């Protein structure tokens, strides 16, 4: 028993896509939507707490001498800001290189991102110190630490992902799927950099811009 059926033969279609047409790209974008929502609520919390204090940031009275305007240490903050944007920029180069299937460049630039990412993680601990507060000093300190920690988590995830990719590609080479994965990870890093721009501004300039009530 045989029948004639109309068919659509898709065997000639590409076996995968390197860009936003691939499911993993969409999945990653949705993940970033979730994370962005989370940061939006963290920022809302920061703003909400502003209303509960007379001075912003609240004076640091737990240590001597008392600091009446203990704003976070801008020098280290700015340095790390540059490093984080640098890490994202190297991922842009890796992204471009993976479009050309240029394995050495992909390895080189991803490696740079890992190095800069690690540096950013170290500097982040200096930033904690620079807040001049411990997380349990008051609500202001809690939320500033929370924002720094949540962003740190993403730096850690980004570095892990990139290291895994480095290991895989240097061992097995750069195939279609991993070129795509490099590109998706790059999007993740752009987001890490982009989201840090407003967060950085709020943490480091909030104490000046929101000083007056």
């Amino acid at each position, binding site marked *: *028993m*045989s*029948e*004639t*059926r*109309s*068919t*659509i*033969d*898709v*065997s*000639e*279609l*590409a*076996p*995968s*896509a390197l860009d936003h*047409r*691939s*499911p*993993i790209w*969409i*999945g990653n974008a*949705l*993940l970033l*939507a*979730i*994370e962005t*929502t*989370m940061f939006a*609520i*963290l920022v809302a*919390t920061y703003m*909400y*707490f502003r209303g*509960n*204090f007379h001075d912003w940031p*609240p004076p640091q009275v737990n240590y001597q001498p008392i600091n009446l305007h203990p704003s976070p240490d801008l020098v280290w903050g700015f340095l790390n800001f540059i490093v984080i944007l640098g890490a994202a920029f190297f991922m842009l180069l890796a992204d471009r290189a993976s479009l050309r299937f240029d394995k050495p460049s992909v390895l080189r630039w991803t490696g740079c991102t890992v190095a800069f990412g690690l540096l950013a993680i170290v500097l982040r601990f200096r930033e904690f110190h620079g807040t001049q507060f411990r*997380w*349990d*000093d*008051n*609500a*202001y*300190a*809690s*939320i500033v*630490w*929370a924002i720094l920690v949540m962003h740190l988590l993403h730096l850690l995830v980004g570095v*892990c992902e990139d290291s*895994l990719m480095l290991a*895989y590609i240097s061992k097995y080479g750069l195939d279609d*799927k991993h070129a795509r994965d490099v590109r998706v990870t790059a999007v993740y890093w752009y987001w890490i950099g982009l989201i840090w721009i407003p967060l950085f501004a709020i943490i480091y300039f909030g104490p000046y811009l929101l000083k007056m009530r």
Partner: protein
Amino acid sequence: MKAGAVAREAVISAEEDQRVHRELDLTWRRRPGLLGWLETTNHKDIAIRYIITAFIFFLLAGILAALMRIQLAFPENHFIGPDLYNQFFTVHGTTMMFLFAVPMMEAIGLYFVPLMVGTRNVSFPRLNAFGYYVYLAGGILLYAGLFLNIGPDTGWFSYVPLAGPQFSPGKRVDFWAQMITLTEIAALVGAVEIITTVFKQRAVGMSLNRIPLFVWAMVVQSFMVIFAMPAVMLASSYLAADRLAHVNTHFFNPAEGGDALLYQHIFWFFGHPEVYIIFIPATGFVSTIIPTFARRKIFGYTPLVLALITTAFIGFGLWVHHMFATPVPDLGQSFFTAASMIIAIPSGIQIFCWIATLWGGKPWLKTPLLWVGGFVLIFVLGGLSGIMLASVPIDLQVHDTYFVVAHFHYVLIGGAVFPLFGAFYYWFPKWTGRMLSESLGQLNFWLFFIGFNLTFFPMHTLGLHGMTRRIYTYVPETGWGQMNLLASIGAGVIGLSVLTFITNVLISRKRGALAGDNPWGASTLEWATLSPPPSYNFLYLPTVHGRDALWDQAVISPVITGLSTEKREVLNTTMLEAAPDHRYEMVGDSIYPLLLALAVGLTFTCGIFNAWAFPIGALFALLALIPWFWSGTETKKQQTDKADKPQSALDLPPSFAPSEIT
């Protein structure tokens, strides 16, 4: 059409069908044995587990409700004391919302969305398995607390300051807070799966304006999950951090600039959309069941889709109506009152479209339609008391009374549980290949309908008479005794109804009438394959020529060929038009999702007691993640398995004719 996809007339023999079936089955089915069972990433396996687990949680929470109703049946009753009562209503509410309603809706989506869009699995199969296992971990955590008699006791929304470190010492609230994190991770995973699958894997020809309404509902719901769940995860994490020794943040500590009202804002920013996260998939069931049993196309497809989307948007602008009893500015109160009334408009549109569909059709009064009828009646009643509550002066009078308890059970049970039972009766034949018994179904429905109204209608009056919620007893002089007794009897009737349902399932699973592929003559693609569907869903991926895939195929539509049968390969289509775009190879089964879930679950469990659990747990999680990503699309074991058994033992069953069911 994109270059690369070629339309052909091909001769396909029955032997060819058999060969394709064997190869696909070998590629897609899970390995035999326990390990295969734990490793599976098939969306149907995972979804069925979700459904059964969520139903068990429904039963557990139902038992707690029954115990509470026994306690309240008589004034000054001594059946359970105040402490246990507090734990019971908290765990009941928490279970119903987080462990039953949301996962159940997502589970049905995870089962049917891939089938309805005509593909073989969800986009990220391993992630999906992980989602189920963390959900299970969250549920076990909550009940571990309850069974150790240290269950949470601060209500399903655990307001601070009551839930804060000062007024709730011990670990009770922490069980609640970490359970939230685990189950919401699962909810988010499910949402990402559903959206990606719908965006990228629809059958060729299923453009946006042909997506089945249930699938639309799941997409809209998933977007709501994505924007709502982070809020509750943050609220509960702030709370856990405030409570945890050596962390002791001050998010909700007014003495250090924290704020208790902030908790309410963040919680309800999630909490109100949560109601729609539960309700919107239920409207999807209704929009699927009604055209099938009215035997005509749905009236008002476009308004129905727009109503869903509008509901989702407005749903995020209502949260303050849960906080009218707090110092919200007057203008804010008016705004949120107005918004709360406006949301009745899209719901009204949906109801009118459904009525119009039934009106213009020849309704076939089977059990699924009966449940839909119950839904409309009860949900409308719940909506009416909702409109009353949206006005601030009334709300201030009945806030925290049984009027509110009546209202939210009317919307939650009417809006979610009734459609859900309808869905069970509707889709049971697809899951098992057999029909549920009609007569037991009718009994099931009427017992539930009567029991429900007996239980909850008197609560309106009790609330107006001043009975506050969350009290474990009352004195006889209040005169509340009779109505409470009535409510408790009603709860017993609901219990009987649920038992009827379980009996029906157990009997019909083995002895129900054979269903065939499409017993109801329905129009969506899940009915275009066997019941239960084979591991790979469709022998050849289908294409679609209209909104009602199976009704609009005057000529047999072409099928997709040229996908690998030896790899888990599916077709990706374009987002708007669903034109063929590229092929997509899915990852194989793996044990690492389970191991990762174990690591995550243990991390949050230990995190209840010590903050160091988090960094240490993260290392274990990494240990599970590395091999997860490293192991490619097919594990070695699976390859050798295939080599060992070159042929699947199964034959392609002949498609039976729809059995006579009248």
